[in-house]
Each structure stands twice: as C-alpha cells, then as structure tokens.
C-alpha cells in the first residue's frame, strides 16, 4: 500500500527534481497494478519496508519487529490518513474559493492558502482597524493612544502575551485607553463559554481578576468547561454569575465583538491595534510597547 503514498509524495517531489521521477514512475506502475487487482511487480514497496525496518532496528527491536510484522496494516493506515488528509485539503480549497477561508463561512480559523496565495487574511497588512471601542475598557478614555486587543482565553498565544499586556497597563496607566475585544476561536473547546463567563465577571467589577484566573487555569477549563468557570466565580464571590452565565446574558454583545473581529480580518489571536496599527501575537514586550511609545510621541 505504500505505493499509493509514494505516488503522491514522489509525484510532488518529481515536479521539482528529476531524481525522484524514477521512483514516481515505479510508484505509478505499482499503484496502477494494485488498482487493477494485480500484484505490484516493482521493488519499491520492499525497498521502503526494508529501509524503514533497518532504520528502526538499531533504535528499538520491538518497534522494528512490529513494523515488519504489521507492515501492510501500517501502510493501509497511512494510506487512509493520506486520503483523509487530501480530502480535507480539497475541502479547504473549496471553502477558500467560495468563502475566502479554508474553514468555511464566517470562520476565523487559520488558513494556509491565504498565506500561500498572498491574498488571504493571514497577513498583517490585510488587517483592518476596528471602528468601535466596544469591549472591556481600562485606562484613560480621553487618551490619545488606544490599544485594542482581540484575544481568546483558550489561546496559548493570548496567554503568553498577557504579561506584556499587564506590564503595558502598569507602565502607561493613564496615558492610554486599553480595549479588550473577545474573539473566541471556533476550533477551541470552551472558548466561547469562557468569553461569555468573563463578561459576566465584568458585570460585577471582577473582570481582571477573573481574566487572570482563566489564563492561569487555561488547560483545566479547556477540558472541564463550566465547572472551572463556576469555581473561579465562587472564589471571587461573584453573586450573579450563575444566572448571567446560564442565561447567556452577553451573547449578543459577544457576537457583535466576533463580527467586529471578522470585519477586521483577524486571523490569529492575540491581535493588537495601536491607534489602528496592527501587531499580531507580539513575542516580546517591546514588540507591543514600542508602537505605543511611538504613538504617544507622535500625539504630543
């Protein structure tokens, strides 16, 4: 069965290098024979099997024996995975062609085709600054510099950027207006519920404490969901949290923020806008703080 995979792999490689073409030809011949219910008469499969088992043997005898014994089953599994992967990729292409995003309509998930073809949203220059300041606000509402963050509590990158956000808020307290907009990633478990729960915490003035707890217990709530939310709410003595959360009180508000994110062509979190200038997932504090410094200097 390895010839099916080899046909695809060597077929692609042979576009770029002639040295893979004999392998691609062998793989094609083998695939054709297998599809026409005849035995493969090339040595390609045996060569791949032998080299694989030989490579495994010095590392793990058990694994080498297992691979040798169950070669057909393993290659079948890889073949099915490859077919599924190809089907998924084709679906992504169709979605990209029809909706401009591989993940389907209204999705904001990462789309590689956008990068590959240079016209997708996965490019900071394509981002559009939000027109509304609706969201969780902190700082000076009259400040000349506004920092908007689109984030997701389940996103490890949003969590990684949190110390920089806190440092920025501490350092530029009073000089900037910070707005947090919820942009829960659709392919992350409990991201939407986490955003709703945080908005309920905000109602009782405990947003930042709740936010901090969410990031701290990110792994836990991604797995357990509501139990963690209630646990945090209880520890913060939030009185109306249960009814607020259960009634999805802030659903419309949250959906509006998501729509704003889609409008801004957010393709990954966290994405910041400093007076409209986008910064995607800053890796260091300076990456976030320098544009703020620059904006403040320009505003004087």
């Amino acid at each position, binding site marked *: 069965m390895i010839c099916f995979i080899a046909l695809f792999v060597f077929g692609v490689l042979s576009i770029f290098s002639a040295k893979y073409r004999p392998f691609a030809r062998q793989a094609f011949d083998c695939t054709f024979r297998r599809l026409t219910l005849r035995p493969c008469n090339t*040595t390609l499969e*045996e*060569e791949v*099997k*032998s*080299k694989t*088992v*030989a*490579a495994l*043997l*010095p590392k793990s*005898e058990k694994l*080498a*024996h297992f691979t*040798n*014994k169950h070669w057909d089953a393993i290659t079948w599994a890889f073949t099915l995975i490859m077919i599924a992967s190809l089907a998924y990729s084709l679906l992504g292409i169709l979605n990209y062609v029809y909706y401009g995003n591989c993940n389907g309509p209204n999705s904001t998930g990462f789309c590689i085709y956008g990068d590959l073809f240079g016209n997708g949203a996965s490019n900071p220059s394509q981002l559009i600054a939000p027109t509304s300041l609706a969201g969780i606000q902190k700082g000076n509402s009259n400040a000349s510099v506004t920092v908007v963050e689109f984030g997701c509590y389940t996103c490890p990158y949003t969590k990684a950027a949190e110390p920089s956000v806190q440092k920025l808020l501490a350092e530029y307290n009073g000089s900037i207006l910070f707005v947090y907009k919820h942009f829960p990633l659709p392919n992350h478990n409990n991201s939407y519920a986490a955003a709703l729960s945080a908005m309920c915490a905000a109602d009782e003035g405990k947003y930042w404490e709740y936010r901090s707890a969410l990031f701290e217990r990110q792994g836990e709530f991604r797995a357990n969901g509501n139990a963690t939310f209630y646990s945090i709410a209880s520890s913060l003595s939030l009185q109306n949290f249960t009814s607020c959360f259960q009634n999805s009180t802030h659903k419309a508000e949250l959906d509006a923020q998501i729509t704003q994110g889609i409008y801004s062509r957010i393709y990954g979190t966290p994405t910041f806008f400093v007076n409209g200038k986008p910064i995607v997932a800053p890796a260091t504090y300076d990456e976030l703080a320098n544009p703020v410094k620059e904006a403040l200097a320009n505003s004087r």
Partner: protein
Amino acid sequence: MDVQKIRSDFPMLQGGKLIYFDNACTTLKPKQVIDAQTEYYSTYSACSGRSAHHLSKKTDEETAKARETVAKFIGAKQTEILWTKNTSEAINLVAHSLDFSQRKKVVLTNMEHHSALLPFMHLAEKGTIKTEFALAGKDGTFTDDAFSQSIDKNTALVVVHHTTNSTGNPSPYREIVKIAHENGALVLIDAAQGAPHHKIDFKKEDFDFLAFSGHKMLGPTGIGCLVGKSHLLEKLNPFMLGGGTIETVSLSGMKLHSLPDRFEAGIQNYSGILGMAAAANYLMKIGMENIEKYEQELDAELVAAIRQISGAQIYGNTNAKGRSALVSFSLKNVSAHQVALMADSLSQIALRSGLFCAQPAMEHMGAPKGAVRASLYLYNTKDEIRIFKETMEKIAKLA
C-alpha cells in the same frame, strides 16, 4: 596469502565499512587493473593492427602481451584466445558458429546460467538443434549416470558449467569431457564462476571450448574470452565480420584472417583487454592454488555461520568437493530481497538476491521466489563473515 596486503590494493575497500559479498555478480577492481586501463587511455590510446605509428605499435605489443598473459592464466595457446564482450557473448559465439548439420543434439543441465541456456534453447526453438537436459538432484549435484544417459553418438555439444553461480558447486566436468569425447561430442565449459576461483588448465582438462569474463576475476567489465582448441576454432563459421577479420577482400570474395583475428571484428576493447591481463597477472602472482585454498577456508566458515542462523535454509550441497566460497540461502518469513536490502542498510553488506539468472536451477532446488547469495573472494575475511552472521541473525529475528 596476505589478505590485508591484498585488501590494500582495492580502492573500494579503503576507509569504509563495505563488506562486499557479491563477487559472483562482479568483483572489485585492484589498483593494478585500474592503472593498466588508465595508462592505455592516458599514454598510448590508439588502434591495434592498423596504423603504422608508434602508438599503434605500442597498442599492438601490449594487447599481444595481454593475450599471452590470459592464455597462460587459462592454460591455452595465444591463438586459442578470442576476445569477447563477456562469457555470454563467448557462448553465443559457439552457439551461432558451430556446425550442427551433422549432429543436432546439445546437452545442457538444469543448473546452467541463462547465458548458457538461452542461446541453445533459442536455436532449438528455431529447429536448428535439439536440446536435452541432464538433471541435477534437489541439492544441485549430479549422479554418476546423469550425463551418460544424455550424451550419445548424436550429441554435437555438451554445455556445462565449471562452477554454478547458484550453489558454488563444480560440475563433474572431467567425467563429462570423458563421456562426451567417447561419443565424439564437443564440450563447452561455462567458466564464468570457475576461472576466477580455481586453477584451470584448458589443455590438460581437454576442454574443447571454454568461456569466461574479466569482470568476475578482478578485471574490467566489457571483456571476456572464448578459449577454443585451434582446430575447432578453425572450423567455426564467424557470424560477425568487419575490420581486421580478413586478409584480402574484393567484390568477388574474401580471405579470412588466421586465428584469432577472424573472430575479432572492428576496434577491440583495448583497455578492457589490458585490464583483464592485469587482473590475470595479479591472480597468478598470488597463485590460484593459494586463492582456492583460502576460499575453501572462507566457505567452511560461511557455511557454518549460515547454519547457525535460526530459520536459515541453504540451497545446494555444501559438502561437495571443490566448492567456491558461495552460498545461496533464505531466511524463514523474510523475503530474499528484504534480507539483501536490510543487510546493505544495517551493515553495508552487498549481497545478491533473486534468481541469479538461473531460474530453472533455483526453482528446481525449491526457491522459486529466489534466494540470497553470499559470494566471497580473495579479499574477504573471516571477520566480515562474523559481521555478516550477526546481521543475518538480527534480520532472522524479524520473522
């Protein structure tokens, strides 16, 4: 015999971990052979027997010396050596040049290489000859009466191996020659595997024709010999004529050259001829008796090693006398091709897998899907056999 000194002559054995056990296919080349060929191309590359300039004369002299050397190596006269491309061409030369009008029967065996089988099977299909096969037992060896039953007064030619490439065993060629000559038949010996490993005296053995290749005896590829008794070569009808094969020619006729020129049409493979002579010199300097003795030691070690591998099956009778260090075997539940590929990947051991161009022989011995062949030569060592055994044991455990 100083094996380490011999190994130092082979560039491919320097600095690496290569264990070359595919000598029945082709052998490695010592620097003496490579130098002989390089010298021709870099200092006197010219035609032989045609031009009058000094380079041509030098080529004449060197190729004549080469023929003398190879004749000495095989125990024949210079005029009895015809250059061919390889053993296959030498056998085909006999098949297509011998007169089968009086006697049509050709006796072969089921242990022959395709190069010996196919030319005669092809002639039989065309109706030129009739073939009959002397059959070996399941162990690849022949009973005393195998040939006496097949060879008779209608037999024109017996074609038989000196040593098989599938088991390393010799044929009973002395008895065959005796029976054939008693019946007035000729004998063509396929010595592709015999000449590199055993001392052969063409005249003393009373062979009629003998074919062998340069590349299996440390020489270059693309050169081989047909050795034939002079009076028999005279009677052969050359099937390929061209430059250098005639004394005179006019539009009304031609007069063929004397032996061996009449069979060597066109410009010859001079560098190959010189390389083959260098190889023959190299082997004679070490002594074919010494090589034979050393190979028998290696063979005993190799057979013992394979017998100790769990699940290994050896094809052919390894107790036969006069064997080469060559063993065909298989490992239970691991394909021959996988064994060879894994030996290469794990320990850089070069082995042959498959049917060895001897499909009837391998099928007859119970290996229709082929086997693995380890074939050793004078530069191989017992230490290499130890590594080979360890590697085979690892592979055998996969079953």
